[in-house]
């Protein structure tokens, strides 16, 4: 029997990026805020120190900072005709556990989405006609526009100290930035990072064949930076241990390096670690969430009432918790009715390795968001007439790392082991680089999340079941991007290159990205979305759901910038609208 605790104003479920940002904003408004985190406390000097964090085996291959499938996992199948089976070990994506969430172990690749990305349905129909959206593709508009989010992107960029170069300030195109980005009010707070050799060669080649390369915006600091909260980050030292690792140098924006030193000292904030929320309790009559039930690591159960409940865990948990708590109508792929679990999407990636005889790249001098990119083929930056797909992606040469277990490209045809393999690794390690394509995934009627009928988690709840595969749209789009990347690879004049297209079914085995999206999507109609434009549940007006679970489909960029902007947008709505008049912020 759960012990009932005194009520708080706001309870946050999960304590990563979005929870930290909301807690900072809502405590500023005088609310008493409690965060519940299933994992442990983590800080830079104790948990990510430079004396031991550069450890590939421990952090990536033995997965020290991530969610353990033994504690929480899901089942997976490519289509409804298959039987879903558990993801027994992590692979394709790496959800986190612990304070800071995935914000601890991200690369720091920072992007805004395009204005047209927020209107994927209406924009494409308007430009290409209704036939542009094939049967079964369930793309939707977001219910919020780029222009509305622009000030909130800006605020998140200041919090993080993003290093980059604007491409479009108030409609005026800027040399050296991304000319395709939406108009922004002002430049990034820090200049771009210093560029290493590989991205430099990519940019030269891309420019030669007529593209407009730019330095990628980065949450790794190009110089020391003090953010508006007064928290100081250090200059990045290019050690090449970002994604899958915590930063030992206070150089990568994360909750720990931007917010927690201020938030944790506030008298009206409390964090409980080792406390996993297993249910959101709600009252259908009053359309309110009443409390959350959580279990400690020792199995004690508590009920925590709150005036406002915010789901701020990773998207897969948000969707799972909505489903297991019986909030909203579960999505049914047969009828297309229902909303919870709808429009699960991901990212489609491919690559082209380039190998040089005469150029020493030194891949180990790197950073998670150090790279040059082109954006000619993202979103609707190019004419899709006759191509047979919508969407797109960026093409970049990131110099993220030279961590040798993970990064040792070998030419096409090299055996996977033996003397020839060893020789190829030794000859190419210092003289190779990889061009990456990072493509959008449109939502599709069959791709969704629901509850598994067979498998259970440690709390006895059904595991979530993921049904997902790439459709023709994604394969055509990714092939198109890979061909464009190959043209740049050739212009780099390497000894040889190796294009790796993304073929066949989506597989949950090899690591791709942790850019899972959807399941509790935002929109303008409760029949087709779980949340309104302020990330407020249509069903329970005091329930807000943060994160990429709100994306109706997944554009061709990394998600964190938009997650940050949406969080500040929602925080603003809670502070300035909801607190004054608690109730639905949009009338259905």
């Amino acid at each position: 029997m759960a012990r009932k605790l005194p009520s708080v104003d706001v309870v946050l479920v999960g304590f990563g990026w979005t929870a930290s940002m909301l807690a900072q904003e809502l405590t500023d408004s005088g609310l008493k805020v409690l965060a519940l985190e299933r994992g442990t406390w983590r800080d830079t000097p104790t948990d990510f120190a430079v004396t031991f964090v550069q450890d590939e085996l421990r952090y990536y291959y033995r997965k020290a900072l991530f969610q353990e499938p033994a504690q929480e996992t899901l089942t997976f199948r490519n289509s409804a005709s298959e039987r879903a089976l558990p993801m027994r070990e992590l692979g394709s994506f790496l959800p986190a556990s612990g304070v800071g969430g995935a914000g601890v172990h991200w690369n720091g690749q920072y992007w805004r989405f395009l204005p047209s990305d927020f209107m994927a349905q209406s924009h494409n129909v308007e430009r290409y006609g209704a036939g542009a959206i094939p049967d079964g593709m369930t793309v939707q508009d977001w219910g919020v526009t780029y222009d509305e989010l622009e000030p909130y992107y800006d605020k998140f960029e200041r919090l993080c100290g993003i290093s980059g170069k604007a491409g479009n300030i108030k409609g005026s195109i800027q040399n050296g930035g991304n000319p395709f980005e939406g108009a922004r009010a002002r430049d990034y707070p820090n200049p771009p990072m210093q560029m290493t050799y590989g991205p430099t060669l990519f940019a030269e080649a891309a420019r030669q064949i007529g593209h407009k390369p730019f330095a990628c915006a980065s949450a790794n600091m190009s110089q020391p930076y003090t953010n508006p909260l007064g928290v100081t980050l250090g200059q990045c030292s290019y050690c090449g241990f970002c994604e899958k690792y915590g930063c030992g140098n206070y150089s990568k924006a994360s909750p720990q390096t931007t917010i927690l030193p201020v938030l944790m000292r506030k008298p009206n904030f409390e964090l409980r670690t080792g406390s996993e929320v297993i249910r959101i309790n709600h009252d259908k009559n009053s359309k309110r969430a009443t409390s959350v039930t959580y279990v400690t690591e020792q199995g004690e159960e508590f009920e925590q009432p709150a005036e406002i409940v915010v789901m701020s865990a990773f998207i897969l948990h948000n969707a799972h918790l909505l489903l297991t708590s019986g909030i909203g109508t579960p999505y049914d792929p047969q009828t297309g009715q229902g909303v919870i679990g709808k429009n699960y999407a991901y990212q489609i990636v491919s690559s082209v390795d380039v190998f040089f005889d005469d150029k020493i790249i030194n891949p180990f001098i790197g950073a998670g968001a150090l790279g040059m990119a082109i954006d000619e083929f993202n979103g609707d930056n190019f004419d899709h007439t006759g191509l047979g797909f919508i969407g797109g992606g960026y093409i970049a040469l990131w110099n993220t790392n030279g961590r040798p277990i993970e990064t040792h490209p070998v030419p096409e045809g090299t055996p996977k082991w033996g003397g020839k393999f060893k020789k190829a690794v030794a000859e190419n390690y210092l003289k190779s680089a990889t061009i990456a394509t990072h493509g959008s995934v449109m939502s599709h009627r069959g791709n969704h999340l629901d509850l598994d009928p067979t498998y259970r988690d440690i709390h006895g709840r059904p595991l979530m079941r993921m049904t997902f595969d790439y459709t023709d749209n994604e394969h055509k789009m990714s092939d198109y991007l890979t061909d464009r990347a190959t043209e740049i690879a050739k212009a780099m004049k390497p000894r040889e290159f190796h294009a790796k297209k993304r073929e066949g079914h989506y597989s949950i085995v090899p690591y791709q990205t942790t850019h899972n999206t959807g399941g509790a999507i935002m929109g303008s109609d409760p029949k087709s979305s779980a949340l309104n434009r302020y990330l407020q549940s249509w069903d329970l007006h005091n329930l807000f759901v943060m994160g990429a679970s709100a994306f109706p489909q997944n554009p061709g960029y990394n998600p964190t910038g938009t997650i940050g902007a949406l969080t500040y947008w929602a925080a603003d709505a809670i502070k300035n609208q909801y607190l004054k008049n608690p109730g639905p912020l949009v009338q259905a």
Partner: protein
Amino acid sequence: METFDVSRRKLLSAGLGLGSVVVSASTTTQARSIAGAVPWETDQASAPLDALAGASPPASFFTASERAFIDAAVSRLIPQDELGGGAKEAGVTAFLDRQLAGSYGKARTWYMQGPWSEGTLSQGNQSRLTPAQTYRAAIKAIDSYCQNTFSNKTFAKLAEGEQDEVLTHLENGKIELEGVKGKSFFEALLQNTLEGFLSDPIYGGNRDMIGWKLIGFPGTRYDYRDYVSKHGEKLALSPVGLKTNPQD
């Protein structure tokens, strides 16, 4: 109309811990309440267990015959040659021994609940065996296969060409083994061998950093700011590890 009661009294009571860390942990739970300050403690670090003084566990997983198999197999996966030592010389057998005796070998973090079913390639590993159980069963089955196929010789006693043939058949799924999938075992062995050859020496492999020296990886350095602008230059930085450097 609902309103929020953010009373001054509430805020004051929430502020009792101001200025000091309030960490309450009852004896019955590991859950912590943290309020009022950053709960940073001096002299605490989450260092890897293997790097701590005296941490050099004796061999504890492989039997003598299993060790002979692993020595032979990893020598074919990454052989000693004119470029230098291979996986065996790098201590990969000792690395695997420690990994399989530890939490990786026990699949401590994996979801290991049934029911068990084969699945598609996209669905990933569905074996109910832990890595330790897989190694034990596969080595026994492969030795048994070799004895039947090569006049009663175990894998370790075969000529190098014969060993390569067996490994290739395993890689291609052409050998049926009793109770374990040969292809899955091969993939785990190859991956774990690369890990042992290229991970930090504190884990028992990459002895004298020969894996890192072979390719030119400078190890666990964390500040390359002086080198970022040296485009195309061979830097010849000798590698350093978490605990040692090769000159020590």
